[in-house]
């Protein structure tokens, strides 16, 4: 999966799950302060990302350090690289 595909699919998650406008989804956008998610939303963000990318990240401690949308992209790309390496 290319970086562009990860960005596009992640943005779809934010649009579909949190009813956000695509134009607000810039890499530097802060997930909580700019996009308005809260702690309950992060639970659903994880579930939605798991579904979208077919990954298991619920117990991954790195989720806690996500702040910006770019952090989400990087996290997913890292997970995918790890999965590819382990396969």
């Amino acid at each position, binding site marked *: 999966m290319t970086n562009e595909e990860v960005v596009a699919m992640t943005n779809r998650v934010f649009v579909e799950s*949190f*009813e956000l406008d695509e134009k607000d989804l810039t890499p530097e956008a802060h997930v909580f302060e700019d996009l*308005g998610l*809260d702690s*309950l*939303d992060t*639970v*659903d963000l994880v*579930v939605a990302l*798991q*579904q979208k990318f077919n990954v*298991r990240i*619920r117990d991954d401690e790195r989720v806690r350090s996500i702040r910006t949308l770019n952090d989400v992209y990087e996290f997913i790309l890292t997970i995918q690289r790890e999965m590819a390496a382990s396969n």
Partner: protein
Amino acid sequence: MKLNRAVITGIGCVSPLGRDVPALIDGLTAGRSAARYMAAFEQYTGLRSLIAAPAELVDEKLIPRKDRRSMSRMSIFSVQAAEQALADACLAPADMVPGDIGCVIGSTIGSMNTMAETFDAMLPEYDLNQMTSMQFFQVISHTAVMNVAQYLGITGAVLAPSAACASGLQAVGIAYDLVRLGRQKAVLCGGTEELHPTVTGSFDVLYAASTGYNDNPAKASRPFDRDRDGLVCGDGSGILLVEEYEHAKARNARIYAEIAGFETCGSGEHISQSSRGAMIQCMGRALQQAGLQTDDIDYINAHATSTVHGDKEEAAAIRDIFADTVPVSSMKGNIGHTLGASGAIELIISLVMMKQSAIFPTLNLEHIDPECGAIDHVVETREQPIRNFLKNAFAFGGINTTLICSRSGDGV
């Protein structure tokens, strides 16, 4: 102990006949049925009743996402109905002393749609990784009242009676008691429900859902009629504002009616079969509490759901107490059986009838079943003043509920 007087000062609903009270009354006035064929039900093997009377979900996105995320359709219906009731009453919770306004909303169960989605995702792998944060908040039994109270900032008593088809009227009765006892100055109260094939299926398996009118849904719900064959499930929500009389007077509120009596009781006989004896007890004790005689009642809004047994029992109970002296009609020919919402929605209709001095008839009552006879069935709109009316709501589990409203001497 001196009890406060409790009056109804606001009404709101989302019903199978439309998004608010005027739409509901327009539909009733036109004699419309909201029942329709449900193509989505066809996929369920063994489901014989393929009809329902759904309410339409509209403008739900006017509720901000963070408030709405914990709401299934039953909570959205209730929020919209509650906002209508408050607007109708010209009252905002923020205008009240914190803790003085409560909220009591009943339903049979939480969201069956969300429950089904949850199990669909979890089974057959027994995998909880797809469970979202909001499924629990939509499935719990008090989901509607929790959402309404949070959304409107209500900080008084928040309660959720769950007694199937009696839930909505029980909620109004509890609100009445909270106000009478001086615990609350005002209470938003009522019932809500949402359709799901398993809800219809639960009645179908007990031979209590209509199965013979799949090709003619508008004729399916026919309370007291010879050719009735079961109920038609509907959904929606009815919410009323019950207010302490002096509080309402002090702010010059319009008063629809005063609640004069309320009774709820069990039959102690059977979990699914209605009991005329328990109904007689329920209506009789409500009359006693109201201090009224049978000839004081000008109208009975029946529970009558179009089931073979239930309608017969209710007609017999009414006959036993009132003979054929009091006009009787059921609204379920028009809106189907909205279950936990039905008591509240039909109470709202009855209040409008009282205001308009006109009684809506039982739709589809074409041939009165002899076993439902010898009571005064209203089969066409009847113009007549209503001083006091009696509203019944009965439920599986042998639970019976009767509420009596009186035209208030002032302000109506």
